[in-house]
Every structure is written in structure tokens, then in C-alpha cells.
């Protein structure tokens, strides 16, 4: 499954890029599984996702939970809890 990923704040800093296009294996079906798969892609990803509980996600600009299915998603974003203005 082809997806656009976006990263913000320290997730972006740790991974070292603001966005990327990925091709996700079919075994990855939820947001939580996507985080685990990303964490396995290298040291920078492992660092970014080392504590998945503090990472928030959005599918197509709407907040989602780790158990949310990624089927049909266009853009998935990962970021720390928002801190307001």
C-alpha cells in the first residue's frame, strides 16, 4: 500500500525529513502496526518511535488512535502531543 507520511516537531527532527512516500507491506493494517514497521527501518526511525505512547497520529488531517485501520488513507502524519500557542 502506497502512503504519504508526514512528520512534525521532534519526530521530524529525529527521522531527519518532513515527509516521504512509502510502500507499506500488506501485513501492516493499523496505525500502531505502521509505527512498529517504521521503527524497524533504521536507527533514526527507532529513535523517533522508541516510545510509541507519546506519538500522536492523524489520517488525512484527522486525529486517529493506534488501533485505527490505515486502509484507504492518503496521508498519515506522526507528531508529539500538540502544545498549543
Amino acid at each position, binding site marked *: 500500500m502506497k502512503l504519504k507520511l508526514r512528520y*512534525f*516537531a521532534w519526530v521530524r527532527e529525529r527521522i531527519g525529513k518532513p515527509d516521504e512516500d512509502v510502500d507499506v507491506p500488506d501485513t501492516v493494517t493499523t496505525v500502531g502496526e505502521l509505527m512498529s514497521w517504521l521503527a524497524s527501518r533504521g536507527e533514526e526511525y527507532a529513535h523517533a518511535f522508541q516510545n510509541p505512547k507519546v506519538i500522536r497520529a492523524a489520517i488525512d488531517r484527522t486525529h486517529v488512535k493506534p488501533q485505527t485501520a490505515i486502509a484507504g488513507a492518503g496521508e498519515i502524519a506522526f507528531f508529539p502531543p500538540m502544545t*498549543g500557542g
Partner: protein
Amino acid sequence: MTTITTVRIQSEPFVTAAEVAAITRGRTDAGAVVTFTGICRGDENGVPIASLTLEHYPGMAEAEIERHVAEAAARWPLIGVTVIHRFGRILPGDDIMMVVTVSSHRAAAFEAADFLMDYLKTRAPFWKQVEKTDGKIWVEAKATDDEAAGRWAAAGKHQAAE
């Protein structure tokens, strides 16, 4: 009641008085205007800061704020609501964000501004980075802020997902 709503996310400074005038000019049903302006302080818990940098998710930030503005307009009889939030590097003494609420009566204007501010200052889709003398650090979400925002949770069904 139709509410005039405006949401802008911009790097440029804003002029609160101009935003108030844009809503109230030429009308005589406005009885109460509340403005809240958030300013970048020169210190964080006593430690001096050089600047604040705000990052946002373009598109999502506007949509999230507009959703909360629409909720405020549904809950209180408002003539107008304007929210402006800046992003990028902001220096101590400069404005960060602004809420204007206009209503016929003061309670509605006041409560709506309080509701929007609680949201904007805690869960608005921004990430704050503080530049101190020893480098830049990301600000972590505060539990006390979340509690203040939680006051309004009863009526906000969307909040379950956040």
C-alpha cells in the same frame, strides 16, 4: 444566528483592533467585545528565552481551529469570532495568537473566548520550541493545561479522539 467567523494561521503579526473593527463596523447589535492576546514572554519558569518557534501542520491546523470556532458559535449566540495564530520564530514581547468574540451580551462573548483560549493554548495543532542560551528544546504538553481544557469536554464529542 449567523456568526461571522475568521480563522487565519500566518507568520505575519496581526492588529487586534483591526480584527475587532472588521466584525463590529457599521452594526449596532454588538454589545460586548472580548479579546484575548497571547504574548511571547521573555522567560520560561524563570529561565530567559531568546525566542519561540511554532510549527504547525498546514491544512490540519486550520481545520481543527475552525471546528472549535464552529462549536463555540453553536454553543453561544455570537455575532463574530476571529482567531489568528502565528507560526514561525517569535521574539519575546511579540504577539503569538489572538481570539476576538463579539456578542450582544457580555456572558456569551466572555465564555466563548474562554472556551477557545483553553483549546488554543493547550491542544491547538502547534508544537512549540523554546530557544534558551543552551539550545532549543521542544515544549512538552502540560497536565494542568489539559485539565483547564477538560472543563469543556462534556459537550465536545470530538475530544474523545484527541
